[in-house]
């Protein structure tokens, strides 16, 4: 197994899927000669040509709409948002056209929108947002958010092969800060399955994306103090793997949910609600959430540091829970 970055894992998944399936093609801003704002598609134009690596005009609604149309007639488009923040410009096409089509007409819309999201890069309110909950709340979309190179690759392949519109949230901070092993051969991971990234019996920590690393760090700190944290990495946000979540919570009786997106009506709200309804008798402590506060993402370092959850803040909450 080789060790690669999260960015490289995404690149490999795209490359391999394009190589294997000529229905797969790419649309987005600056993805051709430039190779994409984050250089994910560097070299793709040379390999796959202008017809499958399409630099679009600056028009998110237009190119997402075009991806939907291509998907409807049998292609498997993968759209790159330059930053997830601009997905709001294509919101109508996504939630009204793509999401509802199969329900209405039983025709598949196999497409992926790659959304580079998240903070910690000092990128301010318009280049740091976490849009996932908007789409989780919109029936007809699948939402994926991997935390490791291994998951990123396997889940992107699954997303491309899925016959439904998938919002694939790739965390920008992880691009170069997450490294890990991936098998040299081909593999695909199923959508809708969480992964227990760390076993433990005392507290369940549920999270995804860039917070997984932070959670693992916090869990290690706790372990030193004799508290064993089980970390559930959601990986797919819709459909949500409630089975894995509930199994862990029933085992530990205590839950902390962590995410970087705003708290109100975020993924954590849904999970807490599911737990409160389904695991009520097993709870030994209140279900806790640690998330970003209800503000835009601030730019300046002290503000962004305060805004984002991190290992220290997670550990502190875990301590509270441990001693509840």
């Amino acid at each position, binding site marked *: 197994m080789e060790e690669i970055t999260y960015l490289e894992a995404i690149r490999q998944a795209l490359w391999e899927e394009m190589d294997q399936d000529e229905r797969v093609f790419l649309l987005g801003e600056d993805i051709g000669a430039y190779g994409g704002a984050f250089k994910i598609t560097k070299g793709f134009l040379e390999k796959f040509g202008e017809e499958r690596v399409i630099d679009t*005009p600056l028009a998110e609604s237009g190119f997402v709409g075009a991806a939907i*149309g291509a998907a*409807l*007639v049998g292609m498997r488009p993968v759209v790159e948002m330059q930053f997830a923040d601009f997905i709001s410009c294509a919101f*109508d096409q996504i939630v*009204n*056209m793509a999401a509802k089509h199969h329900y*209405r*007409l039983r025709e598949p819309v196999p497409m992926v929108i790659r959304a580079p999201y998240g903070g910690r890069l000092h990128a301010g309110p318009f280049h740091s947002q976490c849009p996932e909950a908007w789409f989780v709340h919109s029936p007809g979309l699948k939402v994926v958010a991997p935390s490791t190179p291994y998951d990123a690759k396997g889940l992107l392949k699954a997303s491309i092969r899925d016959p*439904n519109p998938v919002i694939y949230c790739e965390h920008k901070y992880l691009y170069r800060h997450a490294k890990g092993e991936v098998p040299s051969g081909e593999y695909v991971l199923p959508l809708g399955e969480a992964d227990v990234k760390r076993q433990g019996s005392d507290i369940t920590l549920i999270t995804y994306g860039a917070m997984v690393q932070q959670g693992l760090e916090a869990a290690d700190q706790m372990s030193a103090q004799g508290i064993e944290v089980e970390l559930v990495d959601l990986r797919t946000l819709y459909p949500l793997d409630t089975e894995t979540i509930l199994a862990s919570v029933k085992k530990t009786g205590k839950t902390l949910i962590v995410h970087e997106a705003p708290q109100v009506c975020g993924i954590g709200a849904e999970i807490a609600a599911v737990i409160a309804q389904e695991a009520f008798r097993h709870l030994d402590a209140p279900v806790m959430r640690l998330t970003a506060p209800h503000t835009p993402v601030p730019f300046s370092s002290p503000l962004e540091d305060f805004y984002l959850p991190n290992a220290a803040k997670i550990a502190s909450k875990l301590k509270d829970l441990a001693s509840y």
Partner: protein
Amino acid sequence: MSVGTEDLLKFYYYLLLTRGLEDRVIKLYRQGRILGGCYVGSGEEAISVGSACALEPRDVIAPTHRDLGAHLVKGVQPKEYMAQYLGRRTGLTRGKDGNVHFGDLSRHIIGFISPMADGIPVAAGAALAFKIRREPRIAVAYCGDGASSRGDFHEGLNLAAVLTLPIVFICHNNQYAYSVPLSRQMAVPHVADRAKAYGFPTRIIDGNDVLAVYEATTEAAARARSGGGPTFIECKTMRMRGHAEHDDASYVPRELLEEWRRKDPIQRFERTLREREVPEASMRAVQVRVLKEIEDAVDFAEKSPLPDAHEALEGVFAT
């Protein structure tokens, strides 16, 4: 272009069928047998029929809410349409959606959705697929004058232009968008003036002349099919009823309606048929056939079952 008697009778059939089905739906609506909205394209049938008849079977259309005619030409059955309006399981959306919100890719129709102009980039995407796959197919996207104010119109037309896509844009300029007249929708006299911003040919034609629509679409389709890129065709027409059947359109000057009533595309085409010496008997045969098909359709729809409640949960995702 030679349009023979057979073609003329085909156009006639679809024009009559469209008008007849919609008139029937209006009647059902008034009787309270249709729930929700009721949208028709009365007086605009020549646009959807003439354009759809100019296409190859595998060309894809993305119609709008005044385009029943194009759906029918593409193969939608009258009974499916009626069942759709009545919310039956036998409708094209199995009751999931209502009225004109349907489609069927097996007949190469991209299902219409409400947000105006959303179908334009989507149709461009279908055209893009054809281009990538080197298939000799084209896409046709329909829109209204009002829809052309939306950003998706701009983004879609531009994308089609930049990528030289095989697509034809057909605009029903029926002079109103709900209650808003063209002069409050745009500060240029023609929708085609907008389309000039994209760098491909535009045409303005008489939308109440089915042969003119057929001819213009045929030409534009040929250009698209041969790699010449998009064309925009503005069809001048008039919305002859309210925006939907709940709307009495009292905001439209009566004289304007009177003027356009005299230009009715079906009556006008009947005159053409007579000029071209199409036998009255053939015309009557079409009329009779259409009447029967409409009543059969209503019958079928009314006898069709409503969906079962639990079907509400089905089909959110493809598997």
